């Protein structure tokens, strides 16, 4: 279908949007028109490319050349030099930070070279709003095979062979879940897709929905065929307007092509999908709560069993899978379960998408084969820690997860191995933390989140998380007393064992894992009234150590309240009266001179 000489795949993901992609697009479009190139070169706005750190980014196809940090002012030079004269613009190419070497081809940039794309195979490669481009890359072929060639049992068998496990957190084998729902009695069955993506720090589902919405639809249709469902819903966060727009368009196009709705591809099989917008409640990501929310009720979980495979939405047999899980299904049916399982570890097959952020150079989305070590992911793909600081820990799995310290960085990405070191694979949020992160403060942060989002139905979670937060507040504000840490441990134990749903059962994890690896930091707060990472304002002195101060004036420049006095070649000093304790100076000082 490509009559164009060049396709300019400009990232239209949220990240690049916010760094000015639309302004650049306008400038580039105008320039192409001015040079009469708009017929041979076209701009395609794609979903998130993944390399958000250097946005706005653009891939020139078929050459494979990757441009970064594009500004409207660059349009003229790009068109003149590259698109007319064939000379890529050096200053806009990727430069390897360590070696300063310029790498023009996207696939050779370390960030991309160490990845393996399956769930995200189309990201940045197609126009997400075009069903034809999806089909041109073998889209809906797996679905066609499922409805026309395979029996439901064969579909389920194929998914079981692939070893695909739920990517929404718990890692339950998808094929097994479908098997239960297929066997369940019921005239009406449902297939739901969980696009609630509540874990703060995870954004892969959003990116898949924005970059490749049809892949999710295809997975849902196959699941529906496997269990005999006639209706599906995608439960999407209301905070994701672009994802909702793209999904709506994709559903409409699929219906027009006879890929969704009645008598799909002439097979006699009917299935249709609607989008259901969430209304801002983290707990609605939990499966039973999500179903109640679609029923129009307060989104509170209920005890299981009965499991949704038997009694789910409106008490009918229901399969719920995460966005990323669904996005893998089409390829599995097309290429076979064995193909999928050829990558990975004994118990974790295929690839996993991670959203890497925090104190790491290459912030963005990465998809890696299972079994790769955390170290490789953070240092080779992620490019290590910025500002020459030291790595401290990596948080995996969000509020239900835990942190992994330096000594366990060689743990492979694998559901069981990660659990062994006290974290979880979770939905794939990877937050890298450097030495300036206080672990007590981090635990406090997650507990604040959980106690805010606890739905209130069961007491251990509602009251227990509040108590934990109070104790952590007390410790962080310098009022910790001996015995506090032990009470924390007791509370965690009770909440873990007696809460109703996964929210409460996993809520203590961030506290437990920080206690496990960084107990001395808790001790320092409680017994010495000291915050080793210098984050807890109540425990800081806000004075400058004259021996350490290099008189550079950085603190003076960043202070928002004029509380710092400094002159060239003089030690800075802080006026406690004017100080608002914002910690800007702590962050700015490179010599650790502020106490």
């Amino acid at each position, binding site marked *: 279908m490509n009559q164009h000489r060049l396709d300019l795949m400009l990232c239209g993901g*949220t*990240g690049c*949007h*916010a*760094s000015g992609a639309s302004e650049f697009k306008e400038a580039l479009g105008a320039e192409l028109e001015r040079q009469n190139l708009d017929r041979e070169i076209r701009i395609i706005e794609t979903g998130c490319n993944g390399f*958000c*750190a250097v*946005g706005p980014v653009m891939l020139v196809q078929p050459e494979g050349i990757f441009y970064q940090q594009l500004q409207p002012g660059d349009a003229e030079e790009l068109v003149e030099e590259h698109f007319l004269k064939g000379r890529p613009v050096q200053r806009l190419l990727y430069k390897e930070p360590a070696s300063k070497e310029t790498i023009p081809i996207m696939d050779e940039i370390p960030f991309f070279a160490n990845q393996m794309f399956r769930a995200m195979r189309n990201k940045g490669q197609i126009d997400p709003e075009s069903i034809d481009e999806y089909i041109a890359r073998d889209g809906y072929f797996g679905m066609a095979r499922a409805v026309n060639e395979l029996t439901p049992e064969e579909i389920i068998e194929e998914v079981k062979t692939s070893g695909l496990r739920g990517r929404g957190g718990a890692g339950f084998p998808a094929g097994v879940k479908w098997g239960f729902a297929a066997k369940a009695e019921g005239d009406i069955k449902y297939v739901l897709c969980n696009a609630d*993506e*509540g*874990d*703060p*720090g*995870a*954004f892969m589902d*959003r990116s898949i929905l924005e970059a490749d919405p049809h892949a999710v639809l295809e997975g849902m249709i196959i699941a529906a065929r496997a269990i005999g469902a006639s209706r599906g819903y995608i439960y999407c*966060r*209301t*905070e*994701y*307007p672009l994802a909702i727009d793209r999904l709506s368009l994709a559903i409409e196009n699929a219906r027009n092509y006879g890929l969704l709705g009645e008598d799909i591809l002439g097979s006699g099989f009917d299935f249709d999908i609607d989008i259901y*917008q*969430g*209304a*801002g*409640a*983290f707990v609605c990501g939990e499966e039973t709560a999500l179903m109640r*929310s*679609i*029923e*129009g*009720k*307060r*989104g509170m979980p209920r005890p299981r069993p009965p499991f949704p495979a038997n009694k789910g939405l*409106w008490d009918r047999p229901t399969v719920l899978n995460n966005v990323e899980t669904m996005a893998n299904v089409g390829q599995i049916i097309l290429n076979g379960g064995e193909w999928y399982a050829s990558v990975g570890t004994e118990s974790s097959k295929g690839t996993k998408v991670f*959203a890497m*952020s*925090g*104190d790491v150079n290459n*912030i*963005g*989305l990465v998809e890696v084969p299972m079994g790769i070590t955390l170290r490789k992911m953070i240092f080779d793909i992620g490019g290590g820690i910025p500002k020459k600081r030291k790595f401290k820990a990596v*948080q995996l799995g*969000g509020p239900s997860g835990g942190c992994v310290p330096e000594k366990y960085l060689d743990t492979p990405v694998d559901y069981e191995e990660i659990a062994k070191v006290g974290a979880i694979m979770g939905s794939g*949020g990877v*937050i890298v*933390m450097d030495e300036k*992160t206080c672990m007590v403060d*981090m635990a406090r*942060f*997650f507990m604040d*989140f959980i106690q805010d*989002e606890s*739905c209130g139905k069961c007491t251990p979670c509602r009251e227990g998380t509040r108590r934990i937060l109070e104790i952590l507040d007390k410790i962080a504000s310098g009022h910790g007393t001996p015995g506090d840490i032990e009470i924390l441990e007791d509370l965690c134990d009770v909440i873990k064992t007696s809460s109703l749903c996964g929210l409460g059962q996993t809520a203590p994890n961030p506290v437990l894992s920080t206690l496990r690896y960084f107990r001395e930091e808790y001790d320092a707060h409680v017994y010495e009234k000291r915050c080793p990472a210098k984050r807890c304002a109540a425990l800081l002195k806000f004075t400058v150590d004259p021996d350490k101060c290099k008189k550079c004036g950085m603190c003076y420049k960043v202070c*928002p309240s004029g509380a710092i006095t400094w002159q060239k070649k003089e030690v800075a000093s802080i006026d406690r009266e004017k100080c*608002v304790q*914002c*910690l*800007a100076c702590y*962050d700015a000082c490179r010599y650790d001179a502020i106490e």
Partner: protein
Amino acid sequence: MLSHPDITPEMKQRIDEIIASHKDTPGAVIPVLRMCQDVVGYLPVELIDYISRGLNLPRSDVYGVATFYSLFSLTPRGRHTVRVCLGTACYVKGVKEAMDRIGRTYGIGSGETTDDRRFSLEAVRCLGACGLAPVMMVDQHTYGGIKPDQALEILEKYE
């Protein structure tokens, strides 16, 4: 039947249409509340009553739903909604300082609206733009890498 100073006759007409088209759909409360809030800007208690009668549901059910989900606001909102992300990635990158500064400068906390109804401030958990952390959204626009000073500068542009 529905009279409230913030609800104009045109709004009332829209509300009636929304209710009529969802009356017979089971589980329609949340979409109806969302659309009505889009029309009026928030959900006054009188409107919640009106919706419950229209959908033929107990008041307590509709009220229960409206108070459970953070999307719904029962008090008037500012002309601009400022959503500061307090998600993990943004937190690690020091968004707390920006949030504090905004709060102090405009004298509002999370969930509050300035007296002149210029801004409503909301702390949200992850806007899905962690790559740009710390992140703030003003109405529909996302701003990344906000330091306290920049956040205030950006807000100055919104009247």
